[in-house]
């Protein structure tokens, strides 16, 4: 990283420090009630206590697990559906309206139904998360498969490639950047799905914890949980970026 990049990063951290200090000062000077807006120091203490006592960990693990299971299953299904729709015009015409219909219904509105079907707990939330991940992967895979340059398809026909060979050796590799962009969108949406899913149908997880802190009016702890959710989201996003960078190495490396 060059010097300019370091300066910018330092500037970014400095900005965060200034904002937190201003927040702290405002809370003290204006004597805001802790119930409405706790100062950063109180949030930090609550966060530390929750982590040190081990109170937060099971909830964090549950949400992380739901996120992982939801993203993996939803993305895998979306990817496969994208291939099925991209490869067959008949399937596309037959099933596309149903896929779209299933997506325009707000998934979170289906939460109570899933609780009825799958009970309180991990399963309902995973189903909601998976449903949310499904669509970006399906759409991006479908589009990627249909946007292969006609000249390349002719090349593969000229070389006597079968449909399956064309799919594996041409369409999927050339569509990889678009498909992985879909995955990135899916991961971000999935965290929203997991947390809000927990609002409705779970007693464990960071979403459930937010509701619990609301009940006990412990606003500082609520903020601490929001910090954890943000951290989990950043980690998940960075992990997706790393995966993407690794999978796209043939497109970028120069040795």
């Amino acid at each position, binding site marked *: 990283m060059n010097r300019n990049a370091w300066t910018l990063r330092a500037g970014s951290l400095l900005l965060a420090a200034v904002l937190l200090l201003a927040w702290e000062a405002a809370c003290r000077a204006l004597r805001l009630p802790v119930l409405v807006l706790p100062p950063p120091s109180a949030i930090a203490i609550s966060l530390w206590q929750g982590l040190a006592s081990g109170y937060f960990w099971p909830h964090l693990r549950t949400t992380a697990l739901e996120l992982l299971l939801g993203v993996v299953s939803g993305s895998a299904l979306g990817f496969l559906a994208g291939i099925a729709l991209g490869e067959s015009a008949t399937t596309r015409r037959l099933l596309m309206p149903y896929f779209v219909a299933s997506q325009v219904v707000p998934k979170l509105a289906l939460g109570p139904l899933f609780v009825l079907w799958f009970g309180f707990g991990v399963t309902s939330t995973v189903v909601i998360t998976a449903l949310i991940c499904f669509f970006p992967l399906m759409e991006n895979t479908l589009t990627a498969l249909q946007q292969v340059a006609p000249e390349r398809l*002719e090349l593969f026909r*000229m070389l006597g490639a079968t449909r399956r060979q064309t799919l594996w050796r041409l369409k999927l*590799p050339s569509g990889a950047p678009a498909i992985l962009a879909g995955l990135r969108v899916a991961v971000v949406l999935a965290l929203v799905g997991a947390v809000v899913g927990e609002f409705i149908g779970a007693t464990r997880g960071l979403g459930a914890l937010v509701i619990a802190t609301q009940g006990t009016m412990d606003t500082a702890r609520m903020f601490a949980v929001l910090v954890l959710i943000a951290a989990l989201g950043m980690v998940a996003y960075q992990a997706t970026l790393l995966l993407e960078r690794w999978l796209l190495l043939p497109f970028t490396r*120069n040795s």
Partner: protein
Amino acid sequence: MPLLSLQQVRFAFPGWPLTVDGADLEVEQGSFHCLVGRSGCGKTTLLKLAAGLLQPQSGRVVFHGQARDIGFVFQSPNLLEWQRVIDNVLLPATLHHRATEQERQRAQKLLEQLGLGAHAAKYPRQLSGGQQSRVALARALLLQPSLLLLDEPFAALDAITREELQRDLLATCRRSGTTVLFVTHDIAEAVYLADRVDVVEDGRIAQEIAITLPGRSAAVRYDPAFVRFCAQVRAALHLEAVAA
């Protein structure tokens, strides 16, 4: 018996008038044919009919060779950017089976013949346009096709690179005895490369001109015979009438 013959071939894209309208063409084993014509005259469509990429609505395309015995070079190099140069050249083989040691050696040798021996492990994005065209040519020649079809492969290159590639294409095809059908709109290119220039007009072969030049060195481009043949092709394309 010609290696490839087109007999009264007709073809139209859906909703359009005939692009190819009664074309007759015979390509003898070992010959080098150039199809020359204005934009939209149907020469690329003719080439795709010859390749079997398009099916004629009437008439016959007869190729006396085995399946996959045709190499095709497209207008753009059309390389797979996520594969290394050597893997791009090996594509016609690896698509169907694991590349044999013999095929690997042949791919490397083709790259060396085309001056790219040191670039085998690079990616296409690291090569210049001319180098990419060479890789595309090597790929088309990997399986030693008896017929090589080229669709304006050098049109996007600068004049110097184009001349080098013409020289190398000619040398490579001579060495292997490959029969060539080459589409171009560049008259000098056609006269330099071909032993038969087929002038395409309104979807059929309007005239076939046999080219007999004293050798194919770079100097032949200044030979009076070369100039005469160019004038003949220009006349067949009605260019002289416009100039007058």
